């Protein structure tokens, strides 16, 4: 599960460090170079940061041609698409516990049964292994319906698609033009309305959900076969017993950013991606936003956009440059974090300084210090902070945990012990103590003088000692 992804982070960091070292000694053959070569070779074809192989699972009823614009668009961007139906055993999405594809598109909302390699559990496993999922559901109850609950999405009862009678139009009430929010982090700029037909879902409180498209305010989920006006709403509520499926808080398309880095996007209706909807003019006669919307959603899901990563972090004493393996209390320490953002056009990781509001915590059980980590002026992609280590020894962690909707999560933890001063690091001679020093030294001196007098007294007259003792 996420153990694996943590290991991957470590690998990344290691590779980065290796690369840094290689810059100094070019003679060294580094695995990083080899890997990066592979990476660049792959990136030339695909724009995703995690890979270019895509498995598309299509319902037997629908064919690739229904979504040709979407799929051709993906292929044009370098993805390699493999198609299969839900019941085929091959090619398997996961084999020997190893995911075979970088991304899986599940456009099979009608199928009730899947072959053994596609189960809700294996899909979650895929996701935890950093395979991205694009899942479409329909009003039918399928295994996917139960899976949605795991993502904190609550689907309405079976057979209740989204219905809206506004605005007035010639299409059925279930085919709805939906306005796209211009400020969504996943989408590129403001898009014209998109055509949608399918089911909405309500959100449970889960911080990992990234709402992409919300239902129009006038819409509701209802039994569309017997659309009987306002009663439908009430009926739907009774039927589901789960409250009112209506209003703009319902989601139609929602992304999900997992802790491990994998992304999943849930789409309420597969038609959103179809050629038909992409060409269907909107009410004001313009081209709808479907095609661009689909491309944006795919780009986000396949980790092209909104992808950040921690390149590495270092820390050092304020007057030094190399990290220490431990710090003394009250030391001044500089912490530096380097962040890159994936650029899908050049398929490269570029230093990224645009993050605002990132915080560094210096934690032992509880954060002892929590403060803003600002970009270093002049050094792209670098964020640094200098602070005083608390007056408390223990094993501390530099903790950066940056989670924003639409962006991949940035997490970095570095453990460093903070120790008390060594025996020779305390201030040695203090001014208020001079009477004590004087006392001790005078005692010793007097002791020596006394010894001398005593030994002298053995031979000489004892009278003399009386006069000298006054000092």
């Amino acid at each position, binding site marked *: 599960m996420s153990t694996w*992804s943590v290991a991957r982070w470590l690998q990344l960091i290691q590779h980065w460090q290796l690369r840094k070292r290689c810059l100094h000694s070019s003679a060294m053959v580094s695995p990083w170079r080899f890997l990066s070569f592979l990476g660049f070779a792959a990136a030339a074809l695909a724009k995703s940061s995690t890979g270019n192989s895509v498995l598309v699972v299509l319902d037997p009823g629908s064919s690739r041609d229904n979504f040709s614009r979407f799929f051709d668009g993906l292929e044009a961007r370098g993805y390699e698409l493999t198609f299969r139906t839900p019941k085929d055993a091959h090619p398997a999405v996961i084999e020997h*516990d190893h995911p075979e594809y970088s991304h899986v598109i599940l456009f099979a909302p009608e199928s009730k049964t899947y072959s*053994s390699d596609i*189960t809700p559990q294996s899909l979650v496993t895929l996701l935890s292994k950093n395979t991205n999922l694009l899942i479409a559901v329909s009003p039918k109850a399928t295994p996917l319906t139960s899976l949605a609950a795991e993502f*904190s999405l609550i689907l309405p009862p079976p057979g209740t698609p989204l219905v809206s009678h506004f605005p007035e139009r010639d299409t059925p009430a279930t085919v709805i033009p939906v306005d796209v929010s211009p400020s969504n982090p996943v989408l590129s700029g403001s898009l014209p309305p998109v055509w949608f037909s399918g089911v909405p879902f309500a959100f449970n409180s*889960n911080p990992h959900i990234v709402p992409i498209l919300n239902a129009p305010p006038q819409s509701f989920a209802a039994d569309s076969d017997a659309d009987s006006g306002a009663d439908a709403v009430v009926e739907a509520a009774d039927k589901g017993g789960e409250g009112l499926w209506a209003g703009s808080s319902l989601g139609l398309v929602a992304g999900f950013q997992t*802790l491990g880095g994998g992304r999943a996007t849930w789409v309420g209706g597969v038609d959103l991606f179809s050629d038909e909807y992409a060409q269907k003019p909107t009410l004001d006669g313009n081209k709808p936003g479907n095609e661009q919307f689909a491309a944006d959603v795919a780009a986000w899901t396949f980790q092209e956009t909104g992808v950040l990563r921690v390149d590495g972090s270092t820390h050092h004493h304020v007057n030094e440059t190399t990290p220490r393996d431990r710090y003394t209390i009250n030391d001044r320490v500089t912490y530096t974090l380097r962040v890159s953002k994936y650029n899908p056009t050049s398929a490269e990781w570029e230093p990224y300084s645009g993050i605002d509001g990132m915080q560094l915590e210096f934690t*032992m059980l509880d954060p002892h210090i929590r403060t803003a980590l600002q970009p270093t002026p002049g050094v792209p992609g670098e964020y640094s902070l200098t602070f005083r280590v608390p007056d408390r020894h223990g*094993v501390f962690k530099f903790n950066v945990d940056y989670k924003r909707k639409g962006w991949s999560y940035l997490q970095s933890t570095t453990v460093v012990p903070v*120790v008390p001063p060594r025996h020779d690091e305390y201030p040695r001679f203090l001014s208020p103590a001079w009477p004590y020093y004087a006392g001790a030294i005078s005692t010793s001196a007097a002791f020596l003088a006394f010894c001398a007098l005593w030994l002298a007294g053995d031979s000489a007259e004892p009278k003399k000692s009386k006069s000298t003792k006054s000092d």
Partner: protein
Amino acid sequence: MPLAYSLPTDLSPATVVNASSLLRIVALALISGAAIASRLFAVINFESVIHEFDPWFNYRATRVLASEGFYEFWNWFDPTAWYPLGRVVGGTIYPGLMATSGVIYSILHGLNLPVDIRNICVMLAPGFSALTAWSTYMFTKEMKDESAGLLAAAFIGIVPGYISRSVAGSYDNEAIAIFLLMFTFFLWIKALKTGSAFFGTLAALFYFYMVAAWGGYAFITNMIPLHAFTLILMGRFSSRLYVAYSSWYAIGTLASMQVPFVGFQPVRTSEHMAALGVFGLLQIIAFAELVRAHVSSKQFQRLLYASVIGMGILGGLAIVGLTYKGWIAPWTGRFYSLWDTGYAKKYIPIIASVSEHQPTAWPSFFMDLQLLIFVFPAGVILCFRELRDEHVFVIIYAVVASYFAGVMVRLMLTLTPCVCVCAAVAFSSVLDTYINPVEPDAVEEEAETAGDGAVSASSTAVSTSSGSATKKGKKAAPAAQPGPLGGLVSTVSAVVSTKKGEKSRGIFGGDTRLAVLLNALGMLLFFVLHCTYVTSSAYSSPSVVLASTNPDGSQHIIDDFREAYYWLRQNTPETAVVMSWWDYGYQIAGMADRPTLVDNNTWNNTHIATVGKAMSSSEEVAYPILRKHDVDYVLVIFGGLLGYSGDDINKFLWMVRIAQGVWPDEIQEPNYFTAKGEYKVDDGASNTMKNSLMYKMSYYRFAELFGGNQAVDRVRGQQMPKIGPTLDYLDEAFTSENWIVRIYQVKKEDPLGRDLRTANAFEQGKRRKRSKPVARRRAIV
């Protein structure tokens, strides 16, 4: 030797003296040999391994000292202990033990003897036991004479009460501390007898060594002032007392403050105030004596006395006042528990939970001291008969140590030397009386020395026989009882009877003497056998490795602990934090080399209570605690399969109590009992018990082991439910061969942000054909 008696005129006095001193040296050498040899059972039966719990830390610290040098050791901050608090090791230990081994190590390496540091650590305790025998000899010599000294040395060499803490591998502070204790006392007595500042200084130096080596130094800190104070009350103040005490206290106190762990305690805590008070009192008295020497006026003297007493009272009040104002720390909990045995249980469960801090059971007095405990009072009474200053010391020592030994098992150790000394005095008096050929009215100088020689010879016989008995005991294991014993008795009695045959004359009939002496020797022989038996059977188990006997009588080694610790070492990342109950902290650090939350240095009650809380609450409550402390693995000890009674379920109530002390609202001890107030783990166990993490980890999949039969917990003799507990937040990572050690891995947060119980239910809700890899498990035999 019998010849020495019959030919007193043929031998020059010098020859007799030389012969007896040679015999003494030989006897001491043999005693040392016996003392070392009898401590090697552990190495022979098992292997050269560090024992128990605390020694593992000492060993680890010594390795740091040996490899990094003294200054690094001094500044050693151990980030892996008490994670994440860390431990300032240099400032929280008594470094005497490690420094001793470090010095021995560097000396041996300086001599090009590349001895492994582990072997030095293992053999340190036996080596120092030989020194203890020698210092006891010196001490007893001051009490009575050389022959009593030899007897005392032989006693302390093999008495189980001391062996229990000093077998090979028991690398603990006590290993060197008893030697230092006896030697400091010897030097103190010597200083008091001669009134020499030299011995006082030496006593202070050894006191310093003792302070650096063992927390029990407070015993010396209070014994010597108590002795001095008693002498003053008895009107025995003398300048010798002044010289001895002043030089010891002034130098010793200053020296003891050099140990970082002790720091300013000698002037700040109540435990040390008695010494300071007596020091002040002595100064006042000495001054008064000085003035009295110059003044004759009766009235003046009376005033002087009044003012001396007044100042004494004032000083005492000042100390009390300072205590109240917080300048002087009041007594610590451990100290209170010495006076009120119920105190710790009520207020400080952490102290009460340590097995060493339990009150001593009566049988253990016999087990540890055997016949000495009966002869001991006789020795004390003999001390009363002479009642010189040093005898007062022994009497006080006997009284105080007897009390403490009754209160705490661990303090049996301080009683043992005193018992040996007193018993030796008594025994040697008996032997002296009955071997002495001189009739009571005839006084002859030379026969006296001859008698001495004879006594030392007899004790030589004792020590050699102890040596041979040890060897025989090894061969014949515990079964051997009458065979070798009969032989030994007959040979020894033959020796004695030949000796007696010539000696018997006068009014002390030979038969009476013979009977008494035979009786005494028989007792000594039984003592030797008992010591050998107890040592080999009870005190030589390393507790890291367990032994059981197969049906055919051969020994079966149960090595689960090391198996598990090495599993941790090999299979987990170096930074993986392991949580366990504090008993196993040092062993995990020493053998598995992994960070631990708590260990046997129980300095932080809250941290231990946190672990106790995690263990005794349900998974949902425990999980945030585990994550907060970055715990990767949880280790529990489970004896239910094998019948190993020292397991965590049996210690569980202590965890509950300690946690309750800190979180009385969340953890309540009564919830862990059944409605009838029983402590049960079977079907009838309370829900709180069944949901607790400790219960779940102990019995997870235990019932499966019995393949549908009734599962039985062999420690508690209870039948376990067929369906065992389930775990959602932990994965079983490792279970040792006999299930003694079970290690669980703490799951990471769910990537979808669900709580792990839901995630687990989802995983199991639909039967997955492609299952996740299950935790690797050994085939159960």
